[in-house]
C-alpha cells in the first residue's frame, strides 16, 4: 500500500521563534491588530510504501525523530492517508 505522510515540524513552544516574531510585527503593522502570536514551521510530504497503516506510522515517526526534526528544539506531528490511485 502506498501512503502519503503529511509532516509538520515546528519549534517547541518553549523556544523563541525570531522569524515568527518578525512576521507578527509585519502583520500588526499591516493593521491586523488581533494577531497575538506567529510561529513558523515547515511542512514535509513523504510518499512511501508500507505493509499497513501501523507500519507506516512507525516508520514516519522514526524518520521524524532521526532526521526530519531536531527534537532538542523542534516538535513534530503528522497525519497519514492512503495515496490517491494513479
Amino acid at each position, binding site marked *: 500500500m502506498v501512503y502519503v505522510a503529511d509532516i509538520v515540524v515546528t519549534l517547541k513552544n518553549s*523556544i523563541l521563534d*525570531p*522569524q515568527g516574531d518578525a512576521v507578527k510585527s509585519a502583520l500588526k503593522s499591516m493593521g491586523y491588530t488581533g494577531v497575538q502570536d506567529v510561529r513558523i514551521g515547515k511542512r514535509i510530504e513523504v510518499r512511501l510504501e508500507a505493509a499497513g497503516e501501523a507500519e507506516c506510522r512507525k516508520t514516519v515517526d522514526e524518520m521524524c525523530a532521526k*532526521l526530519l526534526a*531536531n527534537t*532538542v528544539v523542534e516538535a513534530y506531528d503528522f497525519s497519514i492517508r492512503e495515496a490517491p490511485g494513479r
Partner: protein
Amino acid sequence: MKFGIIVFPGSNCDRDVQTAARAVGYDADFIWHTDTSVDGYDCLVLPGGFSYGDYLRTAAIARFSPVMESVARYAASGRPVIGICNGFQVLLEAGLLHGAMLRNTSCKFICKPQRVRVEAESARTPFTLQFRPGQVITLPIAHGEGNYYADGETLARMEMDGQVVFRYCNDSGEPTPESNPNGSLCNIAGICNKAGNVLGMMPHPERAAESILGGADGRLLFDSVAQWVQGGGRIA
C-alpha cells in the same frame, strides 16, 4: 602534526583551515565525506560552510555522511575533534556535543570580528593549552544560525563541568547582552564534551591565524593542539 579536514559537499572553509594550519607550520589534508578511514591524523577538523546547502536544517544531512561514524569512534577514543561554525552544527546534530543551533535572534547573517572570552582552564581541552582563562581574543564570526540553545538542566550540568569554553563578550571581557551577537544562551560561543577532546565553536580561528590577515589569536588554538599531540596526547 597532521590535521585531517572533513570535507562535506558545501563545506567552504576547508581550504582556509588547511592554509592556516600550513601557515603556522603543520600538515593538513582533506578527508572526503564518503571516506570511512580517518587513520593517520592527529586532530580532525569539521570546517565551516553550508554542508548539503543547509537543506532541511543546518548540518541535518551531513551528520549521516559515511565518514561520521569514523569521526564518532575517533572522538570516543579521546583524540581531538574540533567543529568550527557549520562543523559545530554537525557535532551538535550528531550528538557528539549537547544542544542545538537556532536562527540568530536578528534573523540576519552576521559577519564581523567578535570579542570572545576564554572560559576554560588551559588544560581543560587540547585546544586551549596556550590560552589562559579570562583571556579576551578577537575572532571573526560569520553565520546565520549560531544562536546556541540547550535545555536548562543540560546547560547547568555543562557549566558545572566546565564545558563552556568560549563566551561572546565586550572589549573589557564582560559577556553582556549587548555583546551577544546572535542570542546564544549565556553568550555561549564554544563548548566541549565532558572529556574535553571534542570542541565546537562558532567563531573562526582559521580566519585569524596570521597577523597579515588582521589577527593571529586563532593561531593559539592550532598551536595548542600541536602541543597536546607532541606532549603524548595527554592534557598537561
